[in-house]
């Protein structure tokens, strides 16, 4: 009995577990990427004499390159090389076909009821599949590569209950920004968030992914949606693993946020905090030097589809640059088959290699001093995309595409 989080930990440990308990758990999968792996290796090595110097399970340890791939600098290339050597030594494959959070589910590693830790804060995304996913630092991850274990204080849970039907031009990203506005940037600190309600049930896996991904922007340790038929359908052909369809049973939620999304307009988060959210119509005069469509929040096929539908047969504004980066090669190939990539290129966008792109400000569209960008990213922090005087606004793929056409932040409803 309990929240979905308590149910998952109870299932895992084979006894009833309640929020507030500190437990040590054998995790299902462990992941780190090109930026966080080198420090994880250092921690892993320091335990070599205790653990034999081999990863606990090669099938459950995942090294993914996505932050600066292909390498943009000698420094980045050298860190990659260090990790490649480690992978060779351990008999691990380095996955480099996209953003870690997109690749983990595509590979079938993320299943309902599992506990997955990643050396990346957006590891909370796995909650879209009814898994308990959470971000940790490199040392925790190095420990997990060595022992297969991690310690957790089982979190209390905040419930975000979503109802209503979205107006045309309003998307899961807008709903997510509304949640962050309501819950605040640390309203869920140390807590899990469980998303429930008819809107969540009606959302696709990709749409659920968008708000589970941004649970951390509310401080959340995890963001979860109970698995259902849509989850099963998505996972079909990706894994043979048997998994439990866990649900919250008579849960105690610390707090409940009710959001009726029926009258929600398209929203934009203004710099420098994600809860600085306003209706798009309030910031329409703001000129943008660059727009960016992609990331683990909004780089999937449905995101590219809506942007392509707006850009089809049009040209982006001559004073605005557009960067498009599909979340994975799987997404990229399907977008290619459906003609979206052709649409982006014909519209004047630069289409990049699947990965994080400019979201962490190291390559593929870094901003100059004083520039402004509108992006589908999850963070608008100072200096995140390049120069600290550059400003980042966040919006949906539709808002980003419409703004690419006009050169200023634009209400997508005029372009649908």
């Amino acid at each position, binding site marked *: 009995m309990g929240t979905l989080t308590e149910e998952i930990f109870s299932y895992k440990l084979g006894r009833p577990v309640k929020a507030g308990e500190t437990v*040590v758990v054998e995790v299902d999968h462990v992941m780190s990427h090109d930026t966080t792996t080198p420090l994880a290796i250092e921690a892993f090595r320091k335990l070599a004499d205790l653990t034999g110097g081999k990863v606990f399970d090669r099938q459950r340890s995942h090294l993914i390159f996505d932050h*600066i791939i292909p390498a943009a600098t000698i420094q980045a290339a050298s860190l990659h090389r260090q990790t490649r050597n480690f992978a060779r030594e351990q008999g691990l494959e380095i996955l480099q076909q996209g953003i870690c959070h997109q690749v983990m589910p595509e590979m079938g590693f993320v299943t309902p009821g599992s506990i997955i830790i990643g050396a990346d804060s957006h590891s909370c995304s796995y909650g879209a599949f009814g898994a308990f996913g959470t971000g940790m630092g490199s040392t925790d991850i190095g420990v997990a590569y060595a022992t297969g*274990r991690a310690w957790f204080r089982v979190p209390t849970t905040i419930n975000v209950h979503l109802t209503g039907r979205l107006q045309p031009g309003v998307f899961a990203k807008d709903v997510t920004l509304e949640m962050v506005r309501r819950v605040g940037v640390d309203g869920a600190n140390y807590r899990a968030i469980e998303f429930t309600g008819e809107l969540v049930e009606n959302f696709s896996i990709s749409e659920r992914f968008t708000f589970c991904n941004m649970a951390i922007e509310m401080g959340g340790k995890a963001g979860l949606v109970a698995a259902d038929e849509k989850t099963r359908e998505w996972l079909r052909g990706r894994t043979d693993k048997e998994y439990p369809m866990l649900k919250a049973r008579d849960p105690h939620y610390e707090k409940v946020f009710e959001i009726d999304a029926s009258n929600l307009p398209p929203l934009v988060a203004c710099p420098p905090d994600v809860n600085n959210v306003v209706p798009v119509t309030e910031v329409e005069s703001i000129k943008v030097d660059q727009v960016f469509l992609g990331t683990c929040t909004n780089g999937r096929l449905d995101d590219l589809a809506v942007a392509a539908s707006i850009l089809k047969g049009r040209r982006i504004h001559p004073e605005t640059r557009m960067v498009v980066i599909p979340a994975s090669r799987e997404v990229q190939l399907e977008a290619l088959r459906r003609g979206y990539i052709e649409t982006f290129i014909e519209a004047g966008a630069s289409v990049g290699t699947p990965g994080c792109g400019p979201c962490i400000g190291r390559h593929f569209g870094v901003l100059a001093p004083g520039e402004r960008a509108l992006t589908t990213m999850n963070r608008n*922090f100072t200096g995140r995309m390049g120069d600290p005087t550059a400003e980042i606004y966040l919006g949906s793929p539709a808002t980003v595409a419409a703004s690419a056409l006009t050169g200023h932040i634009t209400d997508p409803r005029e372009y649908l």
Partner: protein
Amino acid sequence: MSRIWKLGDNVNTDVIIPGRYNVTTDRAQLAKHCLCEVLPAFAQEVQPGDVIMAGHNFGCGSSREHAPAAILGCKVRVVIARSFARIFYRNAVNIGLPVLVCEEAVLASSDGDQVEVDLERGQISNLTTGQTFQSEPLDPFVARIVQAGGILEYIRLEGTLR
């Protein structure tokens, strides 16, 4: 005696160590750019033993352990905040950067004040104002990791993670 460097709420890991400098695991290198977005003078002027005091949600954002590592690289003795973001707190504890939660001390202290901190007892004495504060007690499991000096040292003591 050490100086307090005072910061506001929601100091995120992107400003503690920006992505463009986060391309090394070397603490001394990371330290050169620590907090450069919000306190440009900090990395130059910080002295070993100085103390960072911050508002709510210190260390929010990414999971990069480079953030507490950069602060350790600056030889900061302890970070005291009204609250910490979860991953930063965990990372700090894991790598042996002392972190204390003390609402009152932060509210009653100013940038540049002199301070003395007794980490064992969680006691914070602001020598400029003459006030003394008691920080919040640690979770018992966390306290064991802190006592060991970090998670790797804890595992070494216990023989495994349990």
